[in-house]
């Protein structure tokens, strides 16, 4: 792939900025790696000068071994038909970043989702509150150090669940065929 196939506005902007790397991963996909300080400015340029008006999604990946969260902003241009994915990393301890809601309205949904699932707080985002997990007060469940299966085993006591219908079945010689502790892993 040559840069000629990329739209020229995009290349101009990417050349202007320091502290970023970009490469074309397929004919209509561009990957940009950018520092967390430079990302909001990059998005502003992409939207304002290169027609990347559609924020398709913000994805969050928990790289627990590096002690970092990766945030990926997927942007689409309806004019040049390219999808730009801007990758940045933030420290896992502080887990705070800046909202891009002023630039992209759809960001509010994705930022709230990441706040709920990963516990990353976005400053300036309009809805930093519970949406899906309203009755959950445990740790953010999508973090890698939250083990959903262990939580289920600890919280819900399978053994003590012994309703009348099961007793009746057991009297007839039936019942639970494989007890949870015997499940082959």
């Amino acid at each position, binding site marked *: 792939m040559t840069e000629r196939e990329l739209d020229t506005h995009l290349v101009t902007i990417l050349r202007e900025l320091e502290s970023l790397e970009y490469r074309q991963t397929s004919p209509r996909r561009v990957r940009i790696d950018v520092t967390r300080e430079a990302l909001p400015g990059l998005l502003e340029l992409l939207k304002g000068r290169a027609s990347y008006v559609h924020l398709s999604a913000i994805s969050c990946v928990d790289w627990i071994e590096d002690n970092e969260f990766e945030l990926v902003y997927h942007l689409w241009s309806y004019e040049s038909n390219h999808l730009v994915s801007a990758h940045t990393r933030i420290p896992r301890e502080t887990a705070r970043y800046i909202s891009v809601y002023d630039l992209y309205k759809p960001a509010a*949904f994705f930022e709230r989702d990441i706040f709920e699932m990963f516990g990353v707080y976005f400053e300036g985002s309009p809805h930093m509150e519970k949406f899906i997990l309203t009755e959950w007060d445990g740790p953010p469940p999508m973090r890698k150090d939250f083990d959903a299966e262990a939580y289920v085993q600890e919280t819900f006591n399978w053994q003590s669940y012994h309703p009348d219908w099961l007793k009746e079945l057991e009297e007839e010689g039936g019942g639970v065929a494989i007890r949870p502790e015997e499940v082959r892993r």
Partner: protein
Amino acid sequence: MRPENYQAQSHPPSNEYELFIGPNHPGIEGNYAFKLKLHGDVVLAGKADGGYLHRGFEKLMEGRLWIQNIALVPRICVPDPVPMEVTYSMAVEDLCGLEVPERAQWLRVLQLELSRIAAHLFTFGGHAATTGMYTTSYWGIADRDLILDLFEALTGGRVYHIFNIPGGTRRDVPPGFLEQVSQTLDYLESRLPDYDNLLFTNQVFITRAKDVGAMTQEQALEWGVTGPNLRATGLAFDVRRDDPYLVYEQLEFDVPTEAAGDAWARAMVRRAELKQSFRILRQVIERLPSIGGPVRAPIPNPLAWNVPAGETYARVESSKGELAYYAVSNGGDKPYRVHVRGPSSMHAVQVLEWLAEGARLEDVAQIMFSLDACPPEVDR
């Protein structure tokens, strides 16, 4: 009987009142609540309330093998499950650098378009029902059932097919299947004038749907609206045409648009898309017999399949809009992260809240259904 967490609240005297719609109600294809603040029958503000369907798909996927997730993904959108399987498979194939055999690509297009027809028929029915015309919903669901019969013949499953796997499809079409599809298409096409008489040219429907939940193209772009809802504001954009995948580049189809951006325009765009899907399917039926070869690329042992480390953003046009999967692998036998971007994550939450403002109570359900939102895509 009051719930455990009930707390009485007192409010100053006001003409405003709150109304809870849902989580079960006619406005949407699943459990999803909407809290309204009203003055008389005018909505002052709406607040979407999700979480009634949350099953933690993304977390579950991290604990299952790449191949096992195929059984999980179609459940993310019940009315339109095929794009979920195909997009997930496309993501895995992209990570592995797998080439999908041409015949499998045509088979996927066949399923995708059948699924789109089924989803649109379902939406016509639901949309009509929100305006009080229940006959269309009975028709829509009955006609959708014919597509489900086709899926049953092809895959064995009516709603969840689990037919597309990374590398291709599980089987080839059974004998006589294409004739069966052709007959069903003939029948559905012959039904369109009936639908027109009953719904699309029905003055009751037109009066109810025109100017309801209208958005301009600028708003739609700002709010992240995609799919038929975006095309109803006049922008001819379709991922199938503008970011082509599978064999859509070899197929002829138009991208229908409407200008008004209201509930009526959205219904008309879906009606026009139905015809385009018929057109695509006719081409598939014509071309498929001449395309030989396997339906599946050889894949490693799926139970010990270490997908190379990397990340990808696979994207398709589902019946509801832009559907994308962001998949990350760290070289293991399970996904490190899968993020599902459903079109309804915009339509059912922010767009709905903004469109409901200033609408009348009687139109709220119609606005919801005309956006064709699928709550499980929000509550993934």
